[in-house]
């Protein structure tokens, strides 16, 4: 029960995007389509799970003064792993996500979970927390990607649903990202308070 709570906490109650509002840059920058959002979400989720696991394993060996630099190096190395892996095996996705893959290294969520959860907990809960938060992040990015792709081009996961001419291109462009996310957070807020 307790473990399940740790897992679902990151998905719903402390969803990184809709509730905690952390890691906005990749959220807005990579969600031009549902596919890109999903790819970015999974890449970040992978880094989150691994960094939480590593941090909880080494927490006893790192002196307190260098805790933050050590965290940064662990996360940056994992971001590099994802970057090289994606470049080798998923070149198409890598090209469309571009700069945001190395930028996972400075993603606030990864840092926040490592510092606030993994540095204080055992291995298994840390992995579950990373998984939950990562899935919550993926969920948020994918749903934002679906909304933007649907309104902008009339497709969902590249599957055409209505004529492309009827879509408003603005939702695929920069302003649409801000506006769509703004309304989605407003809707979440509305339901939370009710």
């Amino acid at each position, binding site marked *: 029960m307790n473990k399940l709570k740790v897992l679902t906490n990151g998905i719903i109650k402390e969803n990184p995007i809709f509730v905690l509002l952390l890691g*906005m840059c990749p959220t807005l920058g990579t969600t031009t389509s549902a596919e890109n959002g999903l790819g970015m979400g999974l890449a970040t989720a992978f880094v989150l799970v691994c960094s939480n696991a590593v941090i909880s394993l080494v927490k006893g060996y790192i002196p307190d003064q260098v805790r933050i630099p050590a965290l940064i190096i662990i996360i940056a190395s994992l971001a590099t792993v994802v970057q090289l892996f994606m470049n080798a095996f998923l070149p198409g996705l890598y090209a469309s996500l571009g700069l945001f893959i190395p930028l996972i290294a400075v993603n606030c969520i990864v840092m926040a979970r490592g510092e606030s959860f993994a540095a204080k907990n055992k291995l298994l809960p840390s992995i579950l927390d990373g998984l939950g938060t990562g899935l919550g992040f993926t969920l948020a990015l994918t749903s934002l990607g679906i909304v933007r792709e649907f309104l902008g081009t009339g497709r969902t996961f590249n599957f055409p649903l209505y004529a492309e001419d009827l879509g408003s291109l603005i939702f695929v462009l920069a302003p649409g990202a801000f506006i769509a996310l703004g309304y989605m957070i407003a809707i979440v807020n509305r339901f939370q*308070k009710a």
Partner: protein
Amino acid sequence: MEYILMFIAAVFVNNVVLAQFLGICPFLGVSKKMDTAVGMGLAVVFVLTVATVFTYLMQKFLLDPLGLGFMQTVSYILVIAALVQLVEIILKKASPALHQALGVFLPLISTNCCILGVAILVIQKEFNLLQSIVYAVSTAIGFALALVIFAGIREQLEMTRIPNGMKGIPIALITAGLLAMAFMGFSGIV
């Protein structure tokens, strides 16, 4: 002329916050008051320029000759974090007034993704050193500009009545969307 075009492109057309989505966290976080927005803007101009010069030199004289290109992300982050500390220490000694003004914003900057983003971008775009510096300075000015405009709008927003669910971040994001739409008007001038 080339540099003037680059400046206009980086400040208005490809604005770092509103078109490239780098540095959203400080953009939303420190834009509630005009003073803090100006302070953060100045700090970013300063750090981004210095960091880009350092990371550029490191790439050309250390990582490339040794074939360590894959260490880019890790080494850049370390350099930026160390640099921010160094800048803070030097400023404290050399110019206490400036340190007072930028004080709280300096540590925040090391996790600002527009610093790392620009440092990696200038390498990806294969700029030379002078181009990189111009690009870094103009990107940072673009960041500061967007931040200051946004802070001005948010100060006004404080005084208006907003539906409950829209208060705070949602209305800020929609405002940013409208601002981004306004900046889209610049596209095509370069």
